[in-house]
């Protein structure tokens, strides 16, 4: 199961629709401070079902919707889509047969989120179920955020233990 594309629209600083082509196995993302690199990481966590605004650096879940700049007005909704190449059949369950799998989340300022699996509406649970056994998910060790290293260094022995229990 490989990631092929990340599509964002209205998500944080990515107000205009954008497609990030993710080809090969060693993809570097570069750019100056504040240009949007970590926002891409937030987008991947969000579409995988992240439900805590704190983990997305926000105070509320609506904070992920583009809220305007000096030249642009805010918009009303955010959308993120991940497109996977599943030709190796890495995913189990009813989607195992698909060569391509897309998951998408869309949310408006009312706090409501809609989820889509291969363009069909589904529940958030269907998205998280898809990832069971793949090691993926908004809180798995497949996403090391900008302060992951400090969290480990500064954790007390009891906190470090809880990281293990999460990972198990």
């Amino acid at each position, binding site marked *: *199961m*490989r*990631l092929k594309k990340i599509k964002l629209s209205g998500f*944080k*600083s*990515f*107000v*205009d629709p*954008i497609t*990030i*082509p*993710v*080809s*090969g*196995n*060693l*993809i*570097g*993302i*570069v*750019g*100056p401070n*504040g*240009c*949007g*690199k*970590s*926002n*891409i*990481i937030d987008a*991947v966590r969000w579409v995988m079902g992240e439900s805590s605004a704190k983990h997305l650096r926000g105070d509320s879940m609506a904070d992920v919707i583009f809220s*305007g*700049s*000096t*030249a*642009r007005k805010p918009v009303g909704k955010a959308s993120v889509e991940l497109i996977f190449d599943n030709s190796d059949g*890495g995913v189990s369950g009813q989607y195992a047969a698909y060569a391509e799998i897309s998951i998408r989340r869309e949310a408006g300022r009312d706090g409501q989120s809609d989820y889509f699996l291969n363009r069909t509406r589904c529940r958030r649970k269907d998205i998280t179920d898809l990832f069971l056994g*793949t*090691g*993926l998910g908004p809180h*798995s*060790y*497949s*996403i*090391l*955020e*900008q302060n*992951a*290293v400090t969290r*480990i*260094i500064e954790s007390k*022995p*009891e906190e*470090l*233990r809880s*990281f*293990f*229990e999460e*990972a*198990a």
Partner: protein
Amino acid sequence: TRTRFRETFDKVNSGFQTLFPRLFGGGQAHLELIGEELLESGVRVMARPPGKRNSTIHLLSGGEKALTAVSLLFALFELNPAPFCLLDEVDAPLDDANVVRYSQMLRALSEKTQLIYITHNKISMEIAELLVGVTMSEPGVSRLVAVDVEEALEMVAQ
């Protein structure tokens, strides 16, 4: 459950003991359980960079602590290896010698795992198969630019 935690601990400990010397070019590290009762024990990191004789990690430098944490995070990742891994500026506190070893580990990991990594570091940029440039030429609005390595070094320097 007790067995499950013990298994997890042993696997991560074993991974950590292997990855640490690869990232540091030597030295040794391991995890210890603190306390009598397995279900309530805390986990402590013991790490010793090459040539040094400290035991706990408190006195280690900023870069040494970061690289120790990276070894542990990669060991935790390998418990349940996903098809891709996203890394956000993990190499930030590392000096060039450490970044070279870290990027060699990224290359090795990328044989089985798709790695998408954010970096400001020139050495980390050089090993990329694809470089995605993010800019904000219009203030507050992100867009992408395709980059090759020389261009990226240029763009980051503006």
